[in-house]
């Protein structure tokens, strides 16, 4: 019996240990995948294996252009929501007019980047994991390898490049849309004119606020790509495996995005 008791206490610890090792291993995989993608983007042409511009452009369209309407609508809604909350909170101090500064700062530093990243993770991160996972299952990745077409160069690098351009671009669009949302609501609720709103927004914003959002959006772009691609490459077990990888990619990237957001907010504001 002593043996059994010893075993039962060892099992959770063993599980914890295994989980920890697996997590470190996976993080290492993400990092290497990111490095390799960068390598192909920067030096691929030297080895006569460039990352194709056409592939990047196609990715930019699906990741960026196609996501513009939904990002705009959601960012506008966030702007309205911030205005409602801001006015309600500031009313208790009789300082409703200050809501403009609140919206301007929280949108540019935080919400535009975050909402964009969440939309892109949901749209493109999942699609990426599903596409590469299906290719893995149907031996298309093996086919690429035996044709000496590096799968990271061919599949991951164009996506990384497209994400690094389009996620910040979408974030900028989200900045404008959210500020507009704020403006519309404050205009209706407080009767503040659009030009006054614009003046106050511009006077309360410095370039660094926008830059903060854009830096974060680059980090989020990397997270979405690396997690989507690696979960796709690691698919085993057929159609069910693809489904699992897709879900995992979205949940993981959104979790990493939120945590990274907190860390970057902390460091960028010191």
């Amino acid at each position, binding site marked *: 019996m002593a043996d059994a008791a010893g075993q039962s206490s060892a099992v959770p610890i063993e599980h914890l240990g295994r989980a920890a090792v697996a997590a470190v291993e996976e993080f290492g995989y993400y990092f290497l995948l990111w490095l390799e993608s960068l390598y192909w983007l920067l030096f691929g042409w030297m080895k006569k294996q460039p990352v194709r511009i056409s592939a990047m452009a196609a990715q930019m369209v699906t990741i960026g252009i196609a996501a513009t309407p939904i990002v705009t609508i959601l960012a506008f809604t966030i702007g309205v929501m911030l205005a409602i909350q801001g006015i309600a909170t500031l009313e208790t101090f009789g300082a409703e007019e200050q809501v403009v500064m609140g919206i301007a700062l929280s949108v540019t530093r935080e919400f535009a980047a975050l909402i964009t990243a969440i939309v892109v993770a949901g749209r493109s991160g999942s699609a990426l994991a599903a596409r590469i996972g299906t290719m893995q299952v*149907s*031996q298309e990745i*093996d*086919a690429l*390898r035996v044709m*000496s077409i590096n799968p990271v160069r061919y599949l991951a690098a164009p996506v990384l490049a497209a994400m690094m351009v389009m996620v910040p671009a979408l974030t900028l669009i989200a900045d404008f849309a959210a500020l507009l949302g704020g403006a519309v609501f404050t205009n209706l609720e407080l009767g503040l004119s659009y030009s006054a709103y614009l003046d106050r927004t511009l006077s309360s914003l410095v370039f660094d606020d926008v830059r903060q959002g854009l830096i974060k959006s680059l980090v989020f772009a990397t997270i979405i790509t690396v997690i989507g691609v690696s979960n796709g490459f690691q698919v085993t077990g057929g159609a069910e495996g693809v489904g699992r990888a897709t879900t995992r990619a979205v949940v993981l990237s959104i979790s990493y995005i939120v945590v990274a957001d907190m860390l970057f907010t902390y460091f960028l504001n010191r």
Partner: protein
Amino acid sequence: MTRTETQPVIEVSALTAHYGSRKILEGIDFHVEPGEIRIIMGGSGSGKSTLLRHLLGLNLPTSGRVRLLGVDVAGASATELHELRRNIGVAFQGGALFSSMTVGENIKLPLREHARLDETTMDIMVRLKLEVVNLAGFEHLMPAQLSGGMIKRAAVARAVIMDPKLLFFDEPSAGLDPVVSAELDEMILRLREAMNMSIVVVTHELESAFKIADRITVLDHGRILMTGTVAEVQSCPHPRVQDLLNRRPRRSEVNAEDYLRRLTGG
């Protein structure tokens, strides 16, 4: 490369391979001569697919060595491997055509990535290879619009677009009706004649194997049972070889104690 024309195109020595802790291949020695059509035959779970993955350099061995066209696959630099793979073609079991591209684009992909040719030349080469596999005029279709046999033939066209010296087939007749499967066999013979390739075919279809093989390697439980000509294999007295040839079920002896232990999960 310092290869001579008579040196084997594939040299495998003492290859042992594992999946995790499970041993899949053990002590495999395997040579394929230039211009030869070699069949790797064996039942499910015999390790033939794993052997193929090792031959293609998709898996790396636990021990032993795989040399293709004189290049050690495990020890090769990225550049050497890149060069080597331009001389190898593979037709995968399910075709592995890229579903987002037309048949023509699929076949053109290796050219686009590895050769500096203008679009018209590449188009002509694609049509040439489509003629070889009897798929002329199908280059604008998507893989999803093709039948199983057509997908396999398109995959062959893609595999030979770079005029490889060495061509691999994974289960070419799996899932095909006998007529289409016979046509594929004819095509394999034609390819060797027309392009002078060495061809390795992994299959468990006896009929097809006997029709096209120069020599057959029989694999069982991760070991090579024998390698020989069709006649040699047919007259081989080894019981497992005969089981395979005569479609007899395996005679596994049941150990009562083991059996009970397996059932009770002890």
